[in-house]
C-alpha cells in the first residue's frame, strides 16, 4: 500500500480498490485553522478533478477535488465535531473519505512521495 499525491495537494492511500483520500500537510498549513469540512454523501459518484468536498478555514472556503474517479463508500465521522483534526494530523486521522475506485490503475498516474516533494520544492 503506497501513498500517492496530486498537484492540488490531496493524498491517496490505496488498499485494494479502495482509496483513502485527504489533504496534505502542506495544504493544511496553507489553509490555516480548519473550522468546517463539508463531506460528500456516502454513495455519491465523484469524477477525477471534480468537487468532492469543501474545507473551510477561518478566512475562506476551499474546494477539495476528487483525485480519482469512484464512489464514496465512507467519510470521516470525526471531522464533523473536530475539524481541527485536519490541522493536527492531515495525512492520518484527518482523512476525508474513502473511494471505491472505478479503475484502480488510475492511481499510478499520480505522484509518488518523492515526486510530490519535488513538486512542493517548485512552489517555495
Amino acid at each position, binding site marked *: 500500500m503506497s501513498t500517492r499525491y496530486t498537484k*492540488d495537494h490531496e493524498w491517496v492511500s490505496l488498499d485494494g480498490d479502495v482509496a483513502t483520500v485527504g489533504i496534505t500537510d502542506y495544504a493544511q498549513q496553507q489553509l490555516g485553522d480548519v473550522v468546517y469540512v463539508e463531506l460528500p454523501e456516502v454513495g455519491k459518484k465523484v469524477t477525477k478533478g471534480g468537487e468532492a468536498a469543501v474545507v473551510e*478555514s477561518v478566512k475562506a472556503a476551499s474546494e477539495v477535488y476528487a483525485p480519482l474517479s469512484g464512489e464514496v463508500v465512507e467519510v470521516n465521522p470525526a471531522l464533523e465535531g473536530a475539524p481541527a483534526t485536519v490541522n493536527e494530523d492531515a495525512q492520518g486521522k484527518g482523512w476525508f473519505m474513502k473511494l471505491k475506485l472505478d479503475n484502480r490503475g488510475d492511481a499510478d498516474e499520480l505522484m509518488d512521495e518523492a515526486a510530490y516533494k519535488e513538486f512542493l520544492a517548485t512552489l517555495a
Partner: protein
Amino acid sequence: MSEPTDTASAPLAVTPLHDLHVRLGARMVPFAGYDMPVQYRDGILTEHNHTRAAAGLFDVSHMGQAFLTGPDHETTARALEALVPADIVNLGHGKQRYTQLLNAEGGILDDLMVTRSSDPDEDGALMLIVNAACKHQDYAHIEAHLPANVKLMRAEHRALIALQGPKAAEVLARHAPEAAGMGFMAARSMKVAGIDCHLSRSGYTGEDGYEISVKANKVASLAETLLREPEVKPIGLGARDSLRLEAGLCLYGHDIDTTTTPIEAGLTWSIQKRRRTEGGFPGDARIKEELANGPSRVRVGLVPEGRAPAREGTEIRATDGSVIGAITSGGFGPTVGGPIAMGYVSRGSADVGTPVVLMVRGKELAAKVTAMPFAPHRYHKG
C-alpha cells in the same frame, strides 16, 4: 484543493513595518494595493483569541491619514459637514468621531474617523483616517468640495498601529502613563517610549485599545518596543477581520458601499441629532426619509445553525423561499465558537429571532436573525 485567488498584478506598496512582518514570519498577501500580513506563525485562530485575552498589535499603516486645515474649527468643521452626516462642529477638543463620506443618493463612499486635536492652539485642523482602498478617491472627492480657505494635507509620512485587547491599557501605561486616563474615543498627543505619537482610545476589534499614529521612521522602533511586552503579539489582517465581524463592525466594500445608506447599515447612531434635523449633507433627503419611515432593507446579524460558515454573497431567503437579501460578511467566529454572518434583509424580516434560510453551495442552511455584536464590546468606560 483550490488555490486562493489573489491575482493582483500591479506592484504592491509596503508599509514601514514590512521588514518587521517578514522577520516575524508573517504570511504576506495583497490587500488594498499593499503587501500585508494576513497572519503570523501562530495562525488566525490563535491571534484572534490572543487579542481577546491579552493584547494584539496591528499594522494599519495602509490606511489613509490626512489633515483638513482651515482658519478656525468652525470653518473646517463646516467644510467637512458638507460631505459627512456627523456633527463635527460640536466635536470636542481631543475627541474622535466615526462618520461616512456620502454621495448624493446617501450611499457611502467611505467610512472614516475624524479627530479634533486636544490642543486649542491646533484648532482649525481635523485629522482624518480613511480606508486604504478608498484613500485616493476620498482625497480627490474631499478636495473637489473644499472651500478655498480649507486645505487637505496628506500625512503620508505617518504610520498607524493599533494595540487592542484587555491588556492594552496596562501595557501602554508602562510606556505612556498618561494614556491610561484617556476615555473611549478620546485623542491626545503624547510620547510613547520617548517617541512623539498621536493616540486615540479606539480600534476595530470590539476590545479596549488604542490607535497610535507616529512618524513612519519611528514606527518600527515603537512596534518592537510594544512587541517586547509579554502580553503583546503581532496580529494579522485575518484575525482583524474575524474580530471586527464578531464586534458587528462594518467593513467598507463589503458591508457598506455606495449602494447602502448609513440608515440601512444600522449606523444611525453616528448621525447626531442636529444633523438629522438640519440636514445639509449629501443624500440628506433620502436619509431623512429613511429616518422617518424606515429603510426598505437593513443590516442584520445572522447565526447559521450547525457549524458550516456562510460566506459573503450567500443568498438569504425567507422560510417561504422568497429572496430577501444577501450576506455581506460571513465566517467563523472564534470567540463565538461557531459560524456568524451579517447581511442585508428586507425590513419585514429584520426582527431578532426571525428564521431565515441561507443558500450555501446550493443547499439550504437554516439561520436566525441575531442581535449584534456577536461578542460583547469591551470598550473602556470611565
